[in-house]
């Protein structure tokens, strides 16, 4: 079976600054992978190159065995890849349900429909409410995103990603800015995601992240410092030096 995600020799620099230097990464289907590294290590930049927001200078990215480097962002979403954002990126003026409906529509033929109204009793809304239920926000389904708390918005981010029924999920700091209670809630949510979904996560909360990870990639200055099983990476002196030692 082909890898869920295969990044090979990825290179990217902005002017003279190399933000990604020969990064390679293999993620098997269903794997739980953690990417860590100090601020500015190039973690989010790596994500951007996987999703297609940023074009690498060289190297390759394949998703489920298919080379995607030439494909635009929207085409990659149709291959079973979803993501969440470090900085919350939701449709603030719309209801939670509508946010999830937009996610459902994104990979649905009906988005091409120009003429039939999309009403709030549509079957898509029923599905959206189910996904909101799975992140514990069913009761808020028809409130606007701007009215709910930051922690709840984080959960909507995850609901949007899950609504596309992904096989590969990229989570960019899903716990950033959350209170302790909220962290527990969102961690549980992530831990309960089906094992058929490969998850690649960037996270600074070590307690949660280490419990989650099977394999870890440590980045620093755009370079892979350590890559391997959780325990071997955690015990590696280089990891201690660049990250955990601080």
């Amino acid at each position: 079976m082909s890898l869920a995600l295969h990044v090979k020799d990825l290179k990217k620099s902005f002017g003279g600054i190399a933000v990604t230097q020969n990064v390679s990464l293999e993620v098997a289907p269903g794997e739980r992978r953690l990417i860590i590294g100090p601020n500015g290590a190039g973690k989010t930049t790596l994500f951007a190159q996987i999703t297609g927001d940023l074009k690498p200078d060289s190297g390759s990215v394949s998703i489920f065995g298919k080379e995607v480097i030439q494909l635009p962002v929207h085409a990659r979403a149709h291959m079973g890849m979803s993501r969440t954002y470090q900085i919350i990126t939701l449709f603030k003026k719309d209801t939670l349900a509508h946010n999830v409906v937009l996610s459902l529509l994104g990979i649905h033929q009906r988005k091409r429909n120009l003429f039939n109204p999309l009403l709030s009793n549509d079957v898509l809304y029923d599905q959206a409410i189910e996904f909101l239920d799975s992140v514990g926000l069913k009761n808020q389904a028809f409130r606007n995103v701007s009215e709910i708390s930051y922690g709840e918005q984080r959960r909507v981010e995850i609901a949007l990603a899950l609504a596309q029924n992904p096989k590969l999920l990229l989570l960019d700091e899903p716990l950033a800015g959350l209170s302790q209670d909220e962290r527990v809630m969102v961690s549980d949510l992530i831990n309960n995601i089906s094992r058929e979904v490969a998850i690649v996560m960037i996270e600074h909360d070590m307690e949660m992240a280490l419990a989650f990870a099977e394999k870890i990639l440590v980045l620093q200055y755009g370079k892979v410092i350590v890559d391997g099983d959780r325990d071997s990476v955690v015990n590696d002196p280089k990891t201690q030096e660049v990250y955990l030692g601080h």
Partner: protein
Amino acid sequence: MMKQSLIYVGLILVLMILPIFFGEYYVNLGSQIMIAAIFAASLNLLVGYGGLTSLGHATYLGLSAYASAWLFSRYGMSHAYTAPIALIFTTFVGAIFGWISLRASGLSFLMLTLALSQIIWGIGYRWVDLTNGDNGISGLTRPTPFGINLENSNNFYWFCLLITILCLFFIARVVNSPFGASLKGTRDQDKRMSALGYNVWKIRWITFVLASFFGAVSGLLYIYLNKYIHPSVISITSSAEALLCVIAGGAGTLAGPILGSILIVLLKNYVSGFVERWNMLLGIIFLFIVIFMPAGMGPGFSQIKKRWFGGKP
């Protein structure tokens, strides 16, 4: 839902019987408002729903009006041919101009639409052999669909009303469709929309083409009403006026462009008869709207209604 349909039907009935009570001048004013409303509503697709501020939309009104006038005056073609040719030609130009303009977004998009429309305006003014330049094209007629004489101002009003209802109905359907939802999504979060699997560029381009088509429809009605066209119709002033209609009325709302058109056509045609400096008055009113109803008259009025009478806005 039921109540809303009843209101619409009632409104249409009222609009239908209006010409019976008013003189020709006011009936023509009504037609002008409707033409401006279709034009503003088409621009609203881009500006209000797509977040793409265009400063060259008069191109599409002007091109279809010019095409219709030119084919008639040069080749004596009948309206049955000029109308579809003008619509197809203008929409086609819209498809190309959209393709060029949408290389950029934001301010650069605005500049590109402006630049392209200035080219068309330049042709209108300077390519005298083709467009008759500053003299414009005159001596035109109105069509006679199914033998109905549109030279009669009441008949023309009803014809405009029918076309306006059809256009606004289609625009409303598009806005409320899944496509419309995606369009609004690209306005609010274009990056996220790409990540969700939407082809943002294509959504915007289709909207641009639709906007130029409905702009072309208003251009046909414009040339039928005036039976004359002058290059000032495709000038930046004309584009800006449409943008003013949209913003003053309420961008991204269905009623907005209609309200804006009523305001601006009335000021321009009616009030200017009494107040010489009507542009100054327009400025003051616009200032008032921007300060007290920043979202435009449509949302502004419903908020006032809510504050004074309670209930849902």
